[in-house]
């Protein structure tokens, strides 16, 4: 698998795409579909998965321990299929947790990291990769093929879902935008980008089961926490705090709406 420098391939593909778009918009949309299909050929997310799997077994932190005994909800050490059942209520933390907040919990309790150290680099950039995104790539890859099965049995799970639904419809900021502004109706686009309707089962299933994803335009693997963070940036909101209660509630709302679908990530997106 050849790994290109950030953006080199997409710029070429994009200019071909733009040239085709000049013919007619219908053609442009077809070309984008072809471009997306071509992307599926080789996914650099595998590099993050491999790095995450390696980090998982490494003894790290003040307690010199690995994450191999981390309980992601199916018992200590069980990674297979765990992501397809997250977020969920964890009695040891007395809190509903998504994958990232649970990983932080394990880094603190098993490895002895401080909370501040555990959340220090949630997202990678050009200068430094994020271990968190590598963990996320590894753990989510172990749920590929599993059916989404997020529980609302616990009262705190039900509460998180209801809070997430309210937050999805919460309009604010300079532009009055909510998540629902772009993701509340079928078959809408921003520019040429198709927007999933996340209030409907089909839209939520298609979107949620294809995150995390390797973003070709960024040369990074992006987690679901990143996806939410960047949506709020574009909504002109302040910055969503990594693993905050709002981020977990929104993830609960979207993950639960995707129940029944087969998880198929890390994916690759433009």
């Amino acid at each position, binding site marked *: 698998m050849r790994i290109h420098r950030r953006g080199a391939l997409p710029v070429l593909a994009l200019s071909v795409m733009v040239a085709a778009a000049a013919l007619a918009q219908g053609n442009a949309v077809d070309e984008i579909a072809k471009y997306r299909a071509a992307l599926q050929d080789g996914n650099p997310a595998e590099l993050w998965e491999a790095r995450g799997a390696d980090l998982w077994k490494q003894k790290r932190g003040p307690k010199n321990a690995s994450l191999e005994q981390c309980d992601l909800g199916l018992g200590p050490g069980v990674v297979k299929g765990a992501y397809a059942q997250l977020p969920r209520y964890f009695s040891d933390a007395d809190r509903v947790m998504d994958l990232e907040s649970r990983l932080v919990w394990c880094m603190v309790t098993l490895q002895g990291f401080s909370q501040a150290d555990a959340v220090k680099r949630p997202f990678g950039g050009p200068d430094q990769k994020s271990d968190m995104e590598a963990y996320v790539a590894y753990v989510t890859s172990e749920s590929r093929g599993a059916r989404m099965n997020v529980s609302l049995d616990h009262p705190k799970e039900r509460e998180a879902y209801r809070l997430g639904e309210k*937050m999805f419809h919460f309009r604010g900021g300079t532009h009055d935008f909510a998540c629902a502004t772009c993701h509340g*109706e079928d078959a*809408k686009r921003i520019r040429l980008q198709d927007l999933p309707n996340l209030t409907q089962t089909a839209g939520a299933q298609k979107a949620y089961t294809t995150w995390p994803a390797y973003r070709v335009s960024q040369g990074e693997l992006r987690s679901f926490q990143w996806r939410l963070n960047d949506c709020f940036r574009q909504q002109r909101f*302040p910055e969503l*705090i990594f693993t905050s209660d709002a*981020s977990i509630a929104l993830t609960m709302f979207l993950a639960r709406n995707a129940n029944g679908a087969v998880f198929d990530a890390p994916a690759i997106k433009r």
Partner: protein
Amino acid sequence: MQRLPIARIAAAGATVAAAVLATILGCATAPSDDDINAKAAAVLRASFKEQGQAKLDRLAQDDTQKTCSQYSGKAVPKDAAERIEKANLASIKWPADGNYLGDWKNGERIAQEGRGMQYSDDPKGPVGANCYACHRLSPQELSFGTIGPSLYQFGKVRGYTDEVRKYAYGKIYNAEAYSACTNMPRFGHSGILSQQQIRDVVALLMDPESPVNK
């Protein structure tokens, strides 16, 4: 010595009874919609940090945002819609000279410009309206969104009258004045665009020479 265990059992019994009662009540009464709304607002406030030009006051909703959040994805009741439209119409600051028409070429640039007001944007940098994100305008631009209606031939279809110019100005300044809980931002009301920028976008829609009307 014999009384102590009995007291302990009684105390333990009371604790268990209270716990059972709390569980039953907890299961029987899920939090009300108002409770969840209040908690969602509080959790949101605690879940964001200010960054760049985006301060936490952006999470403080006015009546329009609050009411439209409540009815998001549902029909807005008539009285609420009328209240929102009336208040927003009253907030529009019309150009003192009655001139609504600027330069359509500037308007095209503003319609293309997506930057502005994000915490990652330079506060001193350009602020656009990004009209093409949601609307079709000039037919030359194929990369347009569909959240809003097509505005191609906006002026040509409606007529190049002062009345329509004023409507276009007001709609861009504060869309909530005309259609309660629209998805469209309130570009003038919220200080996104200046008076001159709004005039320029009006010209993009209303100037007979604008590509929108070709």
